């Protein structure tokens, strides 16, 4: 019950900030939108174009559901201003609380995404294609989405924890945004990149949060490939769980040591 309570309370404040939420959402639309226009002029086959178009549409919805922005709050409010102390006193694990706080935002953004995509596909007569996929595929994709959300949240929390050690991690946050932008698949599907860059990206965590799940929905992959990607996600989740735990343990020592 208290989970529901916390969820509802945050939901309320999300609604209070309706203007802000809308702007945040519009923000996430701009780049996919430009790129979609860009590809329409490219000399590629019409099936490829329709795959790419679907990719960007799913990116708008998926990106807004998956990508958390909690690192700045963690760094500025929780760690630097010392709000973390309040969390520590609550009989509730920090990670779960952060998770619950983030959820309503994701839900709201996701629903914005659905509305806008519906509107756009109506206005521009775009048909979204998911390729020809089996039930097993969809089941796998569903699991991948859940892991992607988990991975993204874990990644952002770990990123925020850097603030335990440095007072101003803004540059590092921006650096991660840059990697996300290029290697996470925000600009374009990685399969259109130079192969060297793409294969480097596959060994990094970024595409497992955004690119792979979205491309899977758009029907880029076979069942076998989906299984591999899902396993890749699990590997990255375990790496980040481990990282989270050690950062948390050592970071707290810093936190209490400094006394905020």
């Amino acid at each position, binding site marked *: 019950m208290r989970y529901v309570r916390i969820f*509802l309370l945050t*939901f*309320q404040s999300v*609604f*209070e900030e*309706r203007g802000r939420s809308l702007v945040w959402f519009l923000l996430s639309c701009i780049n996919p939108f430009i790129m979609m226009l860009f590809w329409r002029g490219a000399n590629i086959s019409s099936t490829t174009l329709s795959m790419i178009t679907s990719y960007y549409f799913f990116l708008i919805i998926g990106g807004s559901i998956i990508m958390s922005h909690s690192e700045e709050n963690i760094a500025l409010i929780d760690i630097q201003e010392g709000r973390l102390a309040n969390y520590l006193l609550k009989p509730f694990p920090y990670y779960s609380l952060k998770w619950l706080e983030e959820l309503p935002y994701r839900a709201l953004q996701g629903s914005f995404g659905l509305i806008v995509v519906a509107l756009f596909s109506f206005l521009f007569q775009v048909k979204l294609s998911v390729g020809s996929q089996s039930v097993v595929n969809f089941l796998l994709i569903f699991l991948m989405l859940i892991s992607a959300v988990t991975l993204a949240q874990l990644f952002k929390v770990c990123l925020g924890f850097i603030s335990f050690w440095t007072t101003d991690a803004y540059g590092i946050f921006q650096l991660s945004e840059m990697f996300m932008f290029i290697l996470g698949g925000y600009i374009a599907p990685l399969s259109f990149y130079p192969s060297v860059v793409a294969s480097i990206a596959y060994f990094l965590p970024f595409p497992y949060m955004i690119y792979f799940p979205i491309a899977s929905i758009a029907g880029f992959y076979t069942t076998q490939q989906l299984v591999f990607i899902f396993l890749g996600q699990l590997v990255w989740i375990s790496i980040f769980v481990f990282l989270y735990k050690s950062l948390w343990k050592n970071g707290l020592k810093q936190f209490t040591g400094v006394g905020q």
Partner: protein
Amino acid sequence: MSIISVKNLVKEYSVYKKEPGFLGSLHSLIARKYETVRAVDGLSFDIEEGELIGFIGPNGAGKTTTLKCLSGLLYPTSGKVDVLGFTPFDRKTKFLKQIALVMGQKNQLWWDLPAIETFSLNKEIYEIPDKQYKETVYNLAELLDAKEQLQVQVRKLSLGQRMKMELIAALLHNPRVLFLDEPTIGLDVVMQQNLREFVKEYNRRYKATILLTSHYMGDVEALCKRVIIINHGKILFDGLLSDLIRKHAPYKLISIVLTNMINPKDLEGLGEIKKFTYPELVLSVPMNNASEITAKLLKRLPIEDVTIENPDIEDIIRDVFSKS
């Protein structure tokens, strides 16, 4: 010719009313309710050059709003405001070069640089001649006892020191009219005292007209001859502080320290007993007879010490508000 003249000034705001609870939030997503609040409601007053006036009222009385209308930040809903012969809201360069508004917590200083750097920028903005600039910085810093802090990063200054720097920045151009909004808020007692001295001296030295709002009656009592009391955007009293006291509290308090116990009945007819816990005794007596009664008391009672005081100004103000 008065330097500030305000006629029927009205300023209204519309305020968003949030409905409580989860459903309320949902509802406000679709339709929001706005309410019009009249922060200033028909104020009229005139101020002469060189006056130092206290603007008193509880939170939300409309003090700050009035100051902001006078300095040109806010566009009045209706009414006429004239400061130094200008309509403040036009914010003409000539007008802005002659006024300053200092607000307790707000800052115009560059946080990561020493204050003197901000001053050098202000010097150009206000087109202050070199000689006058150097003199003013020197004089103000000396008056505020803040010469050492000029070269220190603003971030590293204490609240009181920062306030001093704010003041210097605001006064560099020797404004003829100065609006001070809660200048002593958050300062310790010593700093409050220093700041009062400073304001008084500034008023005397530069013949500046100063309008000041404050929560601390101490500020007003120490500085202002004339006070304007407002509440709910309306003027309750405008006149000399001494008149206010005479009108609302025509009595004085005589505090006595006794050497021996006395019978309270001896005091009948002399005044009202405010407090009597041996050896302390406080009597409230009519203002006109204060000295006469004191003489009688000295004769009748075994007195070790006696002081005559004006009633507490806070009580008087409270009295004014309760009657309004």
